[in-house]
């Protein structure tokens, strides 16, 4: 049963390296995501979050390093992994001339097993919009549809790249609710974000990434506590303070 033990990790990677010309995007990065947890990659734009998650998603090949997802390797088990993963890419647009229903039907067709289209519509609360063209949806509705497409195969592991960037507060909360329900059903989530509050609300553990490498790792509470007493007495510490302390920069402006 050694394999069982190995697959207690949803994701593990060791020494990932990816370079574009002279620019090092990911620099000997290692991390593990346990089954059932929500793991956040937190960092400024250009920190290497997207390159890292796309390597883990099997969309980019690393120059060096090992990746194991659900205990399987991309080179040997791509077809099986694609069936078991849900992926939401950053800034992906779905076909604007298709309806919500048609879009979900298309993605559902790729999977051997998973929720019905009806159930997917319920999960992301888009039942009322099922006949609308994707082009007519609001930003928040599109993002939920995009998550529903990622959920179409009933995945064990969900990858989300900046799922709430650009959304208004209400839409962000609706999306968080979708993720909470996915996790309550036993799902594992790996997401990237540059919103501190999002990481604090959703994530069990957070890796702070800068210049392509992990500079801090732990639960949001531990990371905040590691700063010692909050420097400003009037408000309690946040991940923003952690990032400031580690890099001397604001997260959003970095």
């Amino acid at each position: 049963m050694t394999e069982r033990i190995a697959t207690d990790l949803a994701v593990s990677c060791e020494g990932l390296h990816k370079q574009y010309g002279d620019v090092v995007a990911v620099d000997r990065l290692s991390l593990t995501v346990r089954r059932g947890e929500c793991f956040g990659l937190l960092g400024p734009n250009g920190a290497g979050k997207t390159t890292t998650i796309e390597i883990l998603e099997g969309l980019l090949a690393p120059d060096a390093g090992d990746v194991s997802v659900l205990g399987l390797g991309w080179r040997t088990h791509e077809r099986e992994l694609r069936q078991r993963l849900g992926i939401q890419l950053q800034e992906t647009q779905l076909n604007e001339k298709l309806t919500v229903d048609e879009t979900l039907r298309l993605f559902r067709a790729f999977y051997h097993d998973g929720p019905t289209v009806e159930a997917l519509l319920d999960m992301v609360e888009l039942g009322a919009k099922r006949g609308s063209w994707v082009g007519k949806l609001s930003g928040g509705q599109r993002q939920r549809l995009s998550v529903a497409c990622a959920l179409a195969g009933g995945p064990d592991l969900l990858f989300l790249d900046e799922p709430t960037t650009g959304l208004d507060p209400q839409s962000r909360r609706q999306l968080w609710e979708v993720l909470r329900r996915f996790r309550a059903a036993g799902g594992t989530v790996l997401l990237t974000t540059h919103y501190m509050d999002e990481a604090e609300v959703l994530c069990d553990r957070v890796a702070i990434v800068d210049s392509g490498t992990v500079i801090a790792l732990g639960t949001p509470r531990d990371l905040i506590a590691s700063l010692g007493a909050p420097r400003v007495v009037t408000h309690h510490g946040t991940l923003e303070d952690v990032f400031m302390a580690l890099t001397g920069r604001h997260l959003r402006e970095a």
Partner: protein
Amino acid sequence: MKHSRGRGGARHPLIELTLARLREFIREPEALFWTFIFPIVLSMALASAFPGGATSPVFVGLAASPASAGLRQTLAAVPGIIVRDVELDEELDALREGEVHLVVRPTDPPTYRFDPGRDGSRTARLIVDDALKRASGRADPWTARDQAVEIPGSRYVDWLIPGIVGMNIMGTSLWGLGFSIVQARMRKILKRLVASPMRKWEYLMAQILARMLFLAPEAAVPLLFGVLAFGMPIQGSVAAIVVVTAAGGLAFSGLGLLVASRPRTIEGISGVLNFVMLPMWILSGIFFSASNFPDALQPFIQALPLTALIDALRGVVLEGATVAGVAGELVLLAVWGVVPFALAIRLFKWK
């Protein structure tokens, strides 16, 4: 949570991908215009610019001087001759622009100025010469009995419409596939699809299937227009037309996938498409026969897929050729379909 093994209410991925492409196309009104309306407008415009020979009048230029008055009276009275005022300094312009086929100067005997390189000018010279000599009292030894023959199937419009059908199949296949794929690449729809378990060949095959489904109306609309509006006869069988059209659709779909396999921008794909299509627009005999080009070019021209498609269509529609009769063209089209498709699968960039 409702969960289902199997596809949870969805159909086979190949069918869903094909439906997605069809829906995208139908919901794009511009695409419908270029596919169905444009070929009809073009056929009508061209047919009116090149009417059958007997019905087109001859335009003769005369200076508006008193010396020309007698000539004017004579010529204006002849059916089929239309006299236009052309002053001495305008003669060359009027001939070049095709405003008149011939200029008559009131010398004795008259002088004809015309371009012997133009059929219309040569015809005009014969008609005018005949009219003026008769008016001067020439006695004809006999007058032949004329039987006007206008055989549907041998007019320019009959020859033109299969050319337009071929051009349309090329244009909609290449533009349609090229633009939709490059747009999907730009908007990272392709990247999202390959992040799912979709099989890449299913996506490419679905694009071809969707194209093939649209071929039927694309070919049928201009052909039916030819039959209904011009009485164009269809000599060959409908089955043979279907086979030729399908082969043409396959060839240009394969080529469309190939040209769309790499470009990342609309500007990029537009350039490649023009580069690929321009030689065929000019050389493949859409508007005038490809045999007008020099012999040295013929091997190249005959190897082009549009030449093969148009030749096969004309063979079937105008001459009643069977599938076996156009087998050479069909083989060439099949090669044009399979080789680019195989290359496209290898070269295709999804991200």
